[in-house]
């Protein structure tokens, strides 16, 4: 167990990270992600308010739709990345990272002057279980009457799972199809056990409980950013290749101006994916060397169990941030060769 934003979380379950990772890609993995924070926003001004503090366009959402977005600073850097759920025209749910929940909550509250919104930090009311992988739908369907096939990617519906009223969302952080189920926190254990049973855990093709380490390798392989690694208050969305959640023409929002300026001038550095081409594993915070110069650092580096490669992310000066660029990584004093590659590293077969 490790401390993760104040939560005791298992790094891995007995099967181990590699098996957890592979099973999620081939069958299904179950993740307890109850540590994620949830902030409830109600009121006639809910959409306009959240639209002003986040970078994506909240007005594009319909009831039952979710959106990946970011809370931005006045400088256009990232306070947190989050999901915005539209439950109704006057009711949104923001799902934020565990380690940033308090910071986000204070920031959001401090921006409500003159807004017709009612905010509630409901993080401890909810548990969240993520069932991910190609078998996720058939497993979860055994526990609910909600026709899961009708829920499109990044959509959700209120519904019962094993009789427990909650939210069933077709979202995830693994690069696989799958669902995230939000339910009252005192039902976490019941749902956890029922989903494992329904997915025949213990069988070689059944669902497997997954820890934090597999959550990290799966998201990295799928080319997704992790707050605190790829994103923080020194990085902008444009540098992180998240221009697609940065709707500069939606009207004013916090940080819009510097982002618009950066878009016009062009970014100086860009988040790039690389794979190691020599023997060695790149790890977080190691230096990137190009033509003898230290030009950046690895933000996330790890073995990728499904691809069987050693991969990572790093911010590179834009002149080097091109697929095929040869780079070196200072792995504890030894320079190891690597090459910039296309992101995502892994894309699931359709």
């Amino acid at each position, binding site marked *: 167990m490790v401390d993760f934003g104040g939560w005791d979380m298992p790094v891995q379950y007995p099967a181990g990270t590699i098996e957890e990772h592979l099973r999620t890609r081939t069958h299904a993995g179950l993740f307890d992600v109850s540590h994620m924070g949830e902030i409830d926003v109600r009121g006639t001004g809910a959409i306009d308010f959240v639209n002003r503090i986040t970078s994506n366009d909240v007005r594009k959402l319909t009831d039952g739709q979710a959106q990946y977005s970011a809370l931005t600073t006045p400088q256009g850097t990232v306070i947190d990345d989050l999901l915005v759920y539209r439950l109704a025209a006057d009711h949104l749910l923001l799902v934020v990272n565990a380690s940033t929940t308090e910071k986000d909550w204070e920031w959001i509250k401090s921006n409500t002057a003159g807004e017709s919104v009612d905010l509630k930090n409901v993080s401890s009311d909810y548990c969240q279980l993520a069932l991910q992988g190609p078998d996720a739908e058939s497993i979860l369907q055994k526990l609910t009457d909600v026709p899961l096939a009708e829920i499109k990617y990044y959509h959700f519906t209120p519904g019962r799972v094993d009789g427990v009223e909650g939210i069933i969302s077709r979202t995830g952080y693994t690069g696989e199809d799958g669902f995230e189920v939000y339910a009252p926190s005192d039902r976490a254990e019941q749902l956890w056990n029922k989903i494992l049973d329904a997915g025949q855990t213990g069988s070689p093709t059944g669902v497997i409980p997954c820890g934090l380490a597999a959550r990290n390798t799966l998201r990295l392989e799928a080319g997704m950013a992790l707050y605190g690694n790829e994103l923080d208050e020194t990085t902008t969305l444009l540098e992180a290749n998240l221009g697609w959640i940065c709707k500069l023409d939606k009207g004013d929002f916090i940080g819009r101006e510097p982002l618009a300026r950066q878009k016009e001038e062009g970014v100086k550095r860009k988040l790039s994916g690389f794979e190691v081409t020599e023997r060695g594993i790149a790890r977080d915070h190691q230096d990137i060397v190009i033509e003898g110069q230290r030009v950046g650092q690895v933000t996330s580096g790890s073995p990728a169990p499904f691809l069987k490669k050693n991969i990572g992310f790093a911010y590179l000066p834009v002149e080097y941030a091109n697929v095929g660029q040869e780079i070196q990584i200072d792995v*504890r004093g030894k320079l190891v060769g690597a090459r910039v590659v296309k992101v995502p590293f892994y894309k699931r077969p359709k």
Partner: protein
Amino acid sequence: MANVPEDLHYSKDHEWVRVEGAEAIIGITDYAQNSLGDVVYVELPKAGDEFAANESFGSVESVKAVSEVFTPVAGAVTQINESLADEPETVNTDPYGAGWMIRVMMSSPGEVDSLLTAAEYEDFTKAETE
């Protein structure tokens, strides 16, 4: 419960030593491989490299972490386990056998007497777990 063979010597850094004449074979313990998780990479020195006692001779990497490995006894490396380059997972499946790491010509063979016995190592790991 971790497997701790009777006939080996142990370090507090979780290496084991098997004495064969003037040579020592060194690897990491079952307890160590279990706490590391799936081993995906082992970096070893070259034959001929010399190490003082408790000096780092390489590293073992799991998906999540890097751990240095230390020579419990001083000496010169006579052989390394080259099969670990392609099959690092042997460290998990057979830590005291096929998962051995290096063979060292000991410069002061008496050093093994200062290492932990199997019983002492077992107590040591229990105390660490509690």
